[in-house]
């Protein structure tokens, strides 16, 4: 069976996020002055072949910990694909 996962990798809370800061500073000049706490991270999507969802998930977690994120500066969350609700933005 193949299982789809999504991962979000983002800089740890205490670290200044240069991309988030740049976006936040730009938004007011573009007319949006009501936005705060912007953070920019990575979104990783992948398909895992495995016998069970549980097994696949624990592999994804290991990949995330060992490779897809750097624990010194980053946190990650795993979203099980089908719990994500896409909204009406064009896709």
């Amino acid at each position, binding site marked *: 069976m193949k299982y789809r996962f999504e991962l979000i990798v983002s800089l740890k809370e205490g670290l200044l996020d240069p991309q988030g800061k*740049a976006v936040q500073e730009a938004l007011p000049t573009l007319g949006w002055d009501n936005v705060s706490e912007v953070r920019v991270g990575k979104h990783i999507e992948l398909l895992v072949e495995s016998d069970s969802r549980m097994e696949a998930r624990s592999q994804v977690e290991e990949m995330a910990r060992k490779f897809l994120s750097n624990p010194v500066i980053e946190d990650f969350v795993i979203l099980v694909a089908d719990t994500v609700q896409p909204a009406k933005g064009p896709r």
Partner: protein
Amino acid sequence: MTGRQPAPTEDLLHRRLGLTDQEFDAIVDKLGRGPNDTELAMFAAMWSEHCSYKSSKVHLRSLPTRGPQVLVGPGQDAGVVALGEGVACVFKIESHSHPSAVEPFQGAATGVGGIIRDVLSMGARPVALLDPLRFGPLQDARNRYLFAGVVAGIGQYGNSIGVPTVGGEVKFAPCHSANPTVNVMCVGLAAADELIHSPKGGAGNVLVLIGASTGRDGIGGVSVLASRTLDQDAHRARPSVQIGDPFEEKLLIEACLELARRGLLDGLQDLGGAGLTCAVSETAARRGVGVDLDIDEVPLREPGMEPFEVLTSESQERMLAIVRPDDVGAVREVCAKWGLSARAVGKLRGGGQMFVRHQGRVVAQVPAKALAEEGPEYERPASAPPWLVRVREDDPAMQPVPVSLEEAFYSVLGAPGVASKRWVHEQYDSLVQGGTVLGPGADAAVIRLEGTIRAVAVSTDGNGRYGLLDPYLGGAHAVAEAARNVATVGARPLAITNCLNFGNPERAEVMWSFAEAVRGIGDACRAINTPVTGGNVSFYNESGDSAVYPTPVVGMVGVLDDYRLLVRPGFPSGGLVIYVLGRTLPELGGSEYGEAVLGKVSGRPPRLDLDAEGRLHRLLHECARQDLLASAHDLSDGGLAVALAESSIAGGLGFTVSVQDDGLDPAVALFSESASRVLVTARPGREGDVEQLAAVLQIPITRLGLTGGSRLEFAGLFDVALSDAVVVHEGTLPRLMSAQRVAV
């Protein structure tokens, strides 16, 4: 195979693919039958303006291409000149303006990738990039977005593959708002006896496709992106946008060079416009053989691709190697070592036919030469635009100076096209490979040849205002200025490549300006003895009623026998005698002063005495050889005032000069753009030698004053603090671009 007769409807496939009815008839003639859809797509790609040069060929033929220094002239992927000591310099320039207008970052990035592969296909290691760029005024947010995106894209790609970007240009004009111009030049080096030539014959040899897999991106890129004017909804061209993968390119460079070094290649061809169709048909046509191509062997990135898609996809980062059957295994091994895919996709064969097979069937059968060499050729109507006479009559030199000379000086020095380009070139790695003796910020970049004291000097130049006002002079000045820049650092100009950026060639005034520019380039190259080794034509740089200025851009390479003798632009110390070489005339037509101070692009460009230009280069070369100069900087946009300021800023040292010795009007003395002039300082005690050499070569030499102090003093006119001049010169682009919001 079934021939297909066109139905008598408006919606004919060939027209939708950009072929005219006459061109369609010519295809039927060549095949002796109607083409099927796959064949038609192949012809449409190969006979597009971009690939076939159908509007420009008749003019380009007039260019001088021979000389003892030329090892490979036009017609190959890149030109080659000999630098001495058995080293060959491979170089070429190309436009990626249309893709960059749609997506600036990726458009420019993939432009870098494309020109690198041209140089690589000759077996040379790419050692330098230069990027002549043109945008609309930076007051406009869209122009800032395009400028920032293009620079970041060139940086990302060039920096990631380890080829230093060492020079270029950035100019601004309203005509570039809708049509940014993005040209990229690449210089490569190889041992002359290890160049990859494309030999005749080779039937039985295998075509090995190396590198990235083939996707649907860039399908129709040739006909849609490069050969049709950008219309209102430029974003309909979206699916053709390419994403570059510089890492893959870096691996391609290393793998191909290793293949060449080990003698495993019978030929190497890049995949660019028109993708596989072009690479395969050109290879076969050049060698006078036929070819069998099995597109089922092409690694695909997406399922279900149609044959015509595989054949015309312009997916990046691919090369085609021609390999003797016995060497295929070794080629695969080298590619595997570099983590690259290498697949045998076909074989050269006797005859001249290109067979394309898909799922065991022949889906196209076309004479290779018909695709690659027998495209249409047009001598399009050409006539000068009627408005030109009036604009030329409006001579800026006849106008009163509307502001103080000091204000005029700051306006010119702070004009975005003149101001320091540090904001741009600090985003580029100019040091990697360890050969950069002189990087961005000088008149020409200088790259040394590993293990020798020899170096190659290179500069790109073009002046759109001159091109607009007199395209003949625009072409000639581009050559002269590029050669002068190379000579100013002490090198001997050798040969050029050129990128011709023009509007729609189906309009007579565009065609006229094109023909004139080519004539100007040809005359200048003959006079200065720098043959044309190749180039690129970019037409259709227009949208709505806005076309780019006729903009020939010249990339010049020269050789420096001993790079330790090179001459830099900055004043190195105080008390040096400053001279200007060459004669200053009241020539403000098309000048930076005209645009920045008077707000007009009018008059006639400066005249050009090509004989004097050549003598000036010899003078500079001789002065450098005898180590007579402490600094040298050529005069171009903004004239003497700007050259003085730049030498002063570069050296961190002021000057006192008197610029009006021969009774010139002050604005003329300061801002005239008379050609063939260079600002120099003599080494202490060598003033007499410089003056004497100038006299021998009949180059006027005028003593202007001395270096020193912390002010820029134009005696009797005005003076400013060096620190204020620095703020204006260095601060202009950062200030204008601070309003640009970085995209994530």
